[in-house]
């Protein structure tokens, strides 16, 4: 896996806000069909780092390569064009719109006359949701009226419906119950088998340890280090998170 060309290579990424270096010279790779768990305390810079890949922030320095090609990602739209989809911690849903409108937000299906084709969008939404959450029926209601798990399903549906190659999940199970967490875990394994590269971001090691092939740990805006999950114990990873030091592995 490591010999092949990485799907995503981020090199020397840095960004500052008002003089504070939120992310300082961080590099990380992601391969096709690989799940990388990005760990660290709140405020360690995980979300900020990954938002440079999803197009929400512009890096001050650094290079992003996709399939070996250097790319510039200036907006979420650019990221989507490269097959990068993000499920944000806040889910980023417009609460006043229904599931279909959210799923297709920014990529609406249109009729031959250029008007919105709500019926077609609802039909496709029903198909995707049937796969993710067979019990989902509230297609006409604004997503405000949905439960946490249902909202999560809408956000996930939006990310996977458009043939993503790179999926970023920011605290994907933070708001879910055990049953729903299991569903998300199954989904991640299924997407991995389909050859999608996945970044799992979490401050809780238990969320990612069983799913990730590799863990990467950040602290105070810097990369502490990465390690294959099978080569480290949870305690060693916790040490990296808390102390910011690399344990002696390999």
């Amino acid at each position: 896996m490591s010999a092949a060309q990485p799907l995503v290579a981020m090199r020397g990424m840095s960004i500052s806000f008002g003089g504070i270096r939120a992310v300082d010279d961080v590099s990380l790779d992601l391969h096709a069909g690989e799940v990388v768990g990005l760990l660290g305390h709140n405020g360690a810079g995980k979300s900020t780092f990954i938002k440079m890949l999803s197009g929400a922030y512009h890096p001050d320095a650094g290079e992003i390569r996709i399939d070996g090609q250097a790319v510039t990602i200036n907006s979420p739209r650019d990221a989507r064009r490269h097959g990068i989809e993000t499920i944000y911690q806040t889910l980023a849903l417009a609460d006043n719109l229904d599931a279909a409108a959210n799923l297709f937000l920014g990529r609406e299906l249109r009729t031959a006359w250029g008007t919105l084709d709500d019926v077609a969008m609802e039909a496709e939404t029903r198909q995707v949701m049937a796969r993710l959450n067979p019990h989902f029926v509230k297609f006409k209601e604004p997503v405000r009226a949905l439960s946490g798990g249902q909202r999560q399903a809408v956000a996930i549906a939006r990310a996977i419906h458009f043939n993503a190659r790179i999926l970023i999940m920011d605290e994907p199970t933070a708001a879910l119950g055990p049953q729903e967490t299991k569903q998300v875990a199954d989904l991640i394994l299924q997407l991995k088998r389909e050859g999608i590269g996945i970044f799992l971001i979490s401050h809780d090691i238990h969320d990612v340890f069983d799913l990730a092939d590799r863990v990467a740990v950040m602290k105070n805006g810097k990369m502490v280090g990465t390690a294959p999950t099978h080569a480290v114990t949870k305690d060693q990873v916790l040490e990296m998170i808390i102390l910011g030091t690399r344990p002696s592995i390999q």
Partner: protein
Amino acid sequence: MLAALALIWVGVDILSGGAFLTPRNLWNLSVQTASVMVMATGMVLVIVARHIDLSVGSVLGVVGMVMGVTQTEFLPRLMGYDSPFIWVLALGAGVAVGAAIGLLHGVIIAYLGVPAFIVTLGGLLVWRGCAWWITSGRTVAPMDDAFRRMGGGVEGAIGSSWTWVVGVLAVAAIVWRALHARRRRQQVGFALRPVWAEVVVAGLACAGVLAVVLVANSYDLPPRVAERIAAARGLVVPPEGLSIAHGLAVPVLIAVGAGIVVTFLARRTRFGRYVFALGGNPEAAELSGVDTRRITVLVFVLMGVLCAVAAAISTARLNAATNAQGTLDELYVIAATVIGGTSLSGGLGTVAGAMLGALVMQSLQSGMVLMGLDTPLQNIVVGLVLVVAVWLDRLYRSRTLKGAA
């Protein structure tokens, strides 16, 4: 909302001794509401996008002045007083100025990051000042004959036969839409409403159209005007007098047209979808790749254009452009929009609701005039109704939301 309107109409009619629900009063009511209605359709989108526009009254004033000067002083010098193009060119100039003002507001709000409240509060003063400045406070009158049709009155109604044509077209459109939507849902295998429900909904809408047609067609022109028209057409006036109906007023048709266009934009285009997404969650819209700044600018441009249309109606009705025109209209427009169910916190609202809201406000106002209430008392009642209406709306909404969750 319709129930509230019906209640006000019946109540005011009883209190004023049957003077309210007459074809004549309802016809006048519709004409008086048209200008505020047009602006309220745009205000819905502005408020849905989490902004506000306090400048619409002043924009109406300055655009009315521009149109007045264009048609009475500028164009006649080039093409004479009787050119048939004057009204179009004057209207076009007004729409261009309205759009330019909206563009300016939108760019300052979206790209310079000044809150809409401040930008349009400034606009309220600036544009009122400009309205005065154009003619140094002089009133401009009279307007071009063709232009005046946009304001209603005897010349500004389409007559009974055309009213029937409009009514039949509207009914046809309602039926076609119901059938089309049903067929489309059938194609993809969605659940359908029972047929009787579809028939009832479409039937009520058609009945509403029919009622409007009948009311407009039972308000006759004044006898002397009718005689003049008869003479012009070479008709013989029968001894019992002549009965020629007004039919629908042009400004009302313009307002309904604006309502249909803005509803279409809001519900059937990407632009409208993004306005609502932006109002529901600006960050989500941004992260979904929506160019929120561009959408904001477009919303204000649309508002400016609608102010220009409203200004055309208002100057045509007054047959003059004055620098005080549209004063306080921003408050009526915002009140109509909010009474019509648009949430000030954004993301929620309908164009039809806002137009009904405008009708409610105007009904109260003219009802109280018919009842002979003093002006200060009228203001007190309208103010109270605004607050109570929004409070009731909140109550209702929090209950239905709880029911849904």
